């Protein structure tokens, strides 16, 4: 059942569950962060409306820099502003930043240890009809490998807003991963959020047979899977890993010790992503049987978001199959 301590949205299983894109939570969070700290500035590469940075730009035009379609410039100008004491947020589609701007992020944000928040919206195959060129499914891999970098992937718009506000207060460069589509609201205003802390969102009575670790909006599919399997007598515990780096090792190790079987769920290549981060850790301290839900070394393509999630095996069906196989 849902963890009542977290005050989650109890209507998340309803057909008409409220759906809001995480990028909207970011837009609102950036406005709040800007109101709280005059050093917060925003930079965008010609996708101000799409990334919902327009909410900040309209309120604080003097603290907004439009750099045009130039993602390498986007992050390096931000690094310069950070060196002068600003708290810059940059936004683009994840495919272009951190996709195209990776080396600049490495050298001018991470190697410099400059506090820049890289916001990559429209991540994952759920971008939909635009097709594979616009579907960033490698961005967690290329950001989490960078020293000094924090990587956050909120599960819903409410968590995205809290994460954005939290990002403005940290000292390290951060990658904030967002999605284009409206996705189910799972948390509430009362749900706690802390960078670096995983949360058990769904737990059976007694010890679980399998652990699922999920991040981003696919957490909803993970929870639905756990609920369905509970009715079949399979006990599944679900962890929301909103911060992929630094990894909440304590929570991961506890789940591994309890279940000895972990399924990871992410809208990303399975190579190098969140599941890999967990495997790297557990291989050292507590080797655990694992299955990885995500894109299996393929590019995305055009289609409706929900179709694509199913096509690449990240729907409830795919996750259920993985859980059933791992407990065989």
């Amino acid at each position, binding site marked *: 059942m849902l963890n009542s301590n977290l005050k989650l949205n109890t209507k998340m299983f309803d057909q008409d569950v409220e759906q809001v894109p995480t990028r909207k939570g970011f837009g609102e969070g950036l406005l709040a962060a800007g109101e709280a700290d005059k050093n917060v*500035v925003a930079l965008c590469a010609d996708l101000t409306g799409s990334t919902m940075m327009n909410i900040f730009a309209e309120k604080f035009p*003097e*603290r907004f*820099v439009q*750099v*045009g379609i*130039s993602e*390498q*410039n986007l992050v*390096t*100008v*931000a*690094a*310069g*502003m*950070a*060196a*002068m*004491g*600003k708290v*810059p947020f940059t936004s683009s589609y994840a495919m272009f930043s951190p996709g195209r701007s990776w*080396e*600049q992020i490495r*050298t*001018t944000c991470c*190697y*410099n*240890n400059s506090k820049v928040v890289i916001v990559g919206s429209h991540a994952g195959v759920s971008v939909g009809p635009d097709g594979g060129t616009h579907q960033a499914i490698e961005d967690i891999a290329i950001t989490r490998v960078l020293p000094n970098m924090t990587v956050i992937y909120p599960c819903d718009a409410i968590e995205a807003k809290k994460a954005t506000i939290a990002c403005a207060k940290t000292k390290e460069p951060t990658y904030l991963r967002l999605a284009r589509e409206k996705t189910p609201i799972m948390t509430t205003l009362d749900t706690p959020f802390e960078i670096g802390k995983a949360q058990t969102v769904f737990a059976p009575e007694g010890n679980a047979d399998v652990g699922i670790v999920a991040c981003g909006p696919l957490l909803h599919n993970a929870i639905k899977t756990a609920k369905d399997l509970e009715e079949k007598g399979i006990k599944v515990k679900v962890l929301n890993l909103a911060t992929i780096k630094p990894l909440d090792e304590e929570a991961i190790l506890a789940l591994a010790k309890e279940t000895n079987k972990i399924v990871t769920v992410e809208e990303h290549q399975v190579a190098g992503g969140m599941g890999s981060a967990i495997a790297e850790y557990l291989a050292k301290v507590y080797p655990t049987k694992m299955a990885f839900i995500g894109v299996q070394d393929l590019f995305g393509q055009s289609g409706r978001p929900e179709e694509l999630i199913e096509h690449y095996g990240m729907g409830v069906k795919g996750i259920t199959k993985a859980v059933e196989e791992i407990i065989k």
Partner: protein
Amino acid sequence: MENLTDEKIKTLKLLATKIRISIIEMLTEAKSGHTAGPLDMADVFAVLYFHQLNHNPSEPFWEGRDRFILSAGHICPVMYAAMAHSGYFPVEELLTLRKLGSRLQGHPHREFLPMVETSSGPLGSGLSQAVGMAIAENMDHGRNSGKFFYCVMGDGEHDEGNIWEAVLLAGKEKLGNLIAIVDRNHIQIDGNTEDVLPLGDMAKKYEEFGWHAEEIDGHNVEDINNAINRAKAIPDKPSCIIARTIASKGVTPFEYDYRWHGNPPGSGPTDKVAKDKQTEVALLELKTFYKLVEEGK
């Protein structure tokens, strides 16, 4: 506008030569690194560090300082030498260049040497950072704060698209507090810049992007100083000074030769000076020149 006195000109020439001598010594000790660019930018660095920059080496993090951003990170020996001779750290430390644990990394790293404004090495990103700093300054203190943002780039570095993105933005933002200086030595690793990827009339290109731009003799300290003074006086445009230089300036047998871009004395091309004589020949010429300037000749 302040002109340089004869005495100051002499002092700057001597300092540029001291910087060149240090460059040869540190590269020889490191047994790796870049020779041509550092040598040819010594005059520009002498004018910046010993006359134009508003800085305080004994208080390197003083908030009111001008910001100096080295985009062409590989020419850092000239920056390290200028910093040491102006008092940021002991001159002896120059000999630790490129060694394990040294603050003087092969390409500058701000985490190792916090008194450099940025880390650099991968080309083309310095100007953007200078642009970001200049914009941040304008946000906080208006357009005439009196603080200037200098960025030194190579000419070959202009093959990078990132630079032109920054050039466009600086023009749009009318950053009068931004002064770019380009080392126009016409060489890069693979050969002459005009053979590798022709850059043509760089000043004209900058002007088209909304900048004030001019080409000067990058070895004439008066010209360098006057160009910087003119740049500072233009309030509503960023300025670009194309400093025409001779690769490896100051060591005649190394001059004009692109093969000295990335080789230190002791392992450079051998058709003019044998490898084991390269350091000796370079130091002899530089020290002789120093004496001549000192004696007023």
